[in-house]
């Protein structure tokens, strides 16, 4: 048996999981399914790409760091890209979601996010065309690490980055006042106000966090696969599946859900056939929902 699918699955799962954190937090705190979340990923990636280009235009060609395919400009660009994606989410909330949320019908907000998703995607196609592009065209040599598994330096770096970000997000949610406030709003927004939590501030924090992680996930896809305007939208269903599988509102759940789906997809490609890729993860999702409708880490509603 070739265990290569484990690495592929973990990588796909990392990207899905990072994206799913934003989906699950938006759902738990703002109480709607944000279909534009995938497009935050794509916008974040293109923003990062644009900043890399801008830095390249200013300082010329920069040598990659050690064995990796990218140099410091990508790291700087990623931070800027996260900030820009956060601003995009805040702007979209200010002009669209917050107004509809005030009317109190979440299905309208969901539909609006669907519209926003299409608009954001079309704008990317308009500006950057739908032709795929890349952060780097350099080819990396995969290193054998035993058990027939090969892994590239970029892949190692991104798996480590995912682990660090997930741990940091979990600590933020459980150990800081901002995180506790986010939990409080997701459990009972009226009581959150009574104890002195500014719900508008919590909503902003949620958008910033979700959008920044979406930008990182998108950039990972960009580094390992390719950059396309549809890259985020194509990951929307796996991200939702991961968020539901893990239990809505749970950060570790979203990541674990992402890894399970990533691994299942990769295993399906290897053992069943590439055409079953999407099907297998949804069969798992349905199976889990039949057995445990609230998801792996979910908690029953009061």
């Amino acid at each position, binding site marked *: 048996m070739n265990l290569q699918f484990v690495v592929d699955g973990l990588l796909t799962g990392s990207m899905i999981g990072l994206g799913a954190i934003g989906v699950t937090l938006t759902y738990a705190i703002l109480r709607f399914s944000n279909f534009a979340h995938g497009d935050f990923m794509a916008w974040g990636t293109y923003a990062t790409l644009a900043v890399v280009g801008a830095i390249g235009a200013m300082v010329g060609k920069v040598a990659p760091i050690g064995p990796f395919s990218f140099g410091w400009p990508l790291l700087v660009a990623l931070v800027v890209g996260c900030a820009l994606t956060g601003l995009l989410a805040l702007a979209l909330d200010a002009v669209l979601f917050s107004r509809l949320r005030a009317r109190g019908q979440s299905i309208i907000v969901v539909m609006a996010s669907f519209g926003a998703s299409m608009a954001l995607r079309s704008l990317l196609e308009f500006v950057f065309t739908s032709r795929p592009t890349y952060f780097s065209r350099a080819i990396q040599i995969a290193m054998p690490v035993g058990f027939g598994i090969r892994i590239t330096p970029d892949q190692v770096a991104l798996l480590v980055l995912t682990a660090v970000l997930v741990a940091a997000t979990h600590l933020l949610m459980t150990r800081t*006042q901002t995180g*506790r*406030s986010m*939990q*409080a709003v997701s*459990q*009972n927004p*009226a*009581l*959150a*106000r*009574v*104890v*002195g*939590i*500014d*719900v508008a501030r919590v909503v902003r924090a949620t958008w910033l966090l979700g959008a920044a992680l979406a930008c990182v996930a998108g950039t990972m896809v960009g580094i390992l696969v390719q950059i396309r305007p549809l890259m985020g939208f194509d990951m929307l269903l796996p991200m939702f599946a991961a968020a539901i599988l893990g239990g809505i509102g749970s950060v570790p759940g979203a990541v674990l859900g992402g890894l399970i789906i990533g691994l299942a997809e990769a295993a399906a490609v290897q053992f069943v056939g590439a055409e079953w890729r999407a099907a297998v993860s949804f069969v798992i999702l349905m199976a889990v929902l039949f057995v445990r409708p609230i998801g792996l880490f979910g*908690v029953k509603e*009061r």
Partner: protein
Amino acid sequence: MSGPVLQVDGLVAGYEPGVPIVRGASIRVERGEIVVVLGPNGAGKSSFIKAIAGLVPVSAGKVLLDGTDITAVPAHRMVRMGLAFVPQTENIFPLMSVDDNLKTAGGILKAKEAVERIARMYDTFPDLRTFRRTAAGNLSGGQRQMLAVARALIVEPKLLVLDEPSAGLSPKLVAMVFSMLADIRKAGVTILLVEQNAKAALAIGDRAYVLVEGREAHEGVASELWNDPVVAELYLGQRAQPSRGGEA
């Protein structure tokens, strides 16, 4: 300052514009008092107290806390103004530990201050210390109420406002909750509460108001009110003409 801790004048409030539930209610709470608001079902007691706490839109009237106008201050700023509210139900965060519930409420304090106050709450309510790592949703009804009150007291409010603290509790727990409130008052906290359970509330209260059809219909000393025929009549929901007896 020597004025009343809370003064409410002609409060008109309701969820929808043009449909007031509270129709010109006025009350006053002096420093160190326990004041009880009673009334038949649908009298607007709960809306009245929520309007004071900034949770129901106010369309007319005034709410003064220690002389400061807090009418229509957003609910999340009320604790900073010195008014802590304990809702009737769902007054804890069920999935968070007892400790995190208290920390969440301490969010408006300096970190060091919050730690000290939480420690003091654990001294006052040893049960809560025992269950500090337990998810609050797993506490018993009485412990939940204790947590909700502790959470409100952490900010050392000028006024503690409670919406039916006895709701859904067994008679034994009702007695426990009311004796807890009596102790809290002894510690110097001013309390305003709305209650369905008139007998228990009047037993610890200093003064009481009877709210009928969205305005105060009667005011009196708590210990005398229980035997007051006017109150009995109002309280049974009979349509007596509201007499504005004790109002100055």
